[in-house]
């Protein structure tokens, strides 16, 4: 698709997009997993 074609800068532009979105995903995933871990620990302890 022509709109995805960044010419000679394809590698640089799409690598930047991928790395940035991956960083955002990892940041949120890490926060959610920390929250799940502690909630599970508290639930197990209370049971």
């Amino acid at each position, binding site marked *: 698709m022509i709109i995805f074609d960044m010419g000679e800068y394809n590698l640089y532009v799409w690598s930047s997009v991928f790395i940035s979105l991956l960083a955002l995903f990892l940041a949120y995933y890490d926060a*959610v997993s920390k929250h799940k871990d502690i909630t599970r620990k508290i639930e197990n302890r209370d049971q």
Partner: protein
Amino acid sequence: MNLKAIYKYGSPPNFYRFVTKVEPWCLYFGLLLILIGSAGGLFMAPEDYQMGDAFRIIYFHVPSAYLSMSAYATMGFASIIGIVWRSNVAFSVAKSVAPFGALMTATALVTGMLWGKPMWGTAWVWDARLTSEFILLLLYLGYITLHASIKEQKRADRAASLVAILGIINLPIIHYSVVWWNTLHQASTISKLDSPSIVGEMLWPLLVMIFGYMFFFVAVICRASSAEVLVREKRSNWVKEI
């Protein structure tokens, strides 16, 4: 500053209930803005007459760099509140911001290198902007390492907070580095909104991306700090009720 608000949300149960309500709104709004900004920046903004399509890296590099500094300012401010008011909630926020800030700083550096390689002919130079941003990454890593290396929670909070507060001095150095010294890094693009050095068609996706990243940052910090508050308050009665 409204001291009543600080006291109200300085209470762990109030803070926990507040951030768990705010988080989904900020997350979905942030993601929506990032989606619109990405589409605008990658597909709708015109090609730069000098840099060609490589300039589109700006839509990911600049928001990351903005957040790396905003996150550090948040961490420093929370550390000051934590030390002055001995607030567990403020220390939780500061601790939660550090990994996200480090990740954003690393992203800003890597996307900057990906932009620098085709434009400057080199991915890295030890100029003032790049070096001061690299020092910011070291400050984040120093905070995280110091906090993890001290077993006693209160001592860890206080020691790491001192690093966060001392490191605030690096923020104006990063911002003004392109003014104070001759750098390979270009000057600010949108430091003054009334006269930005970028045309409107290129500017709006950048502003949308910056706001999107900001809302996403708030969502992540809400989730991470609520987890940290639960870790610290797990023996409290209010935790059993949630």
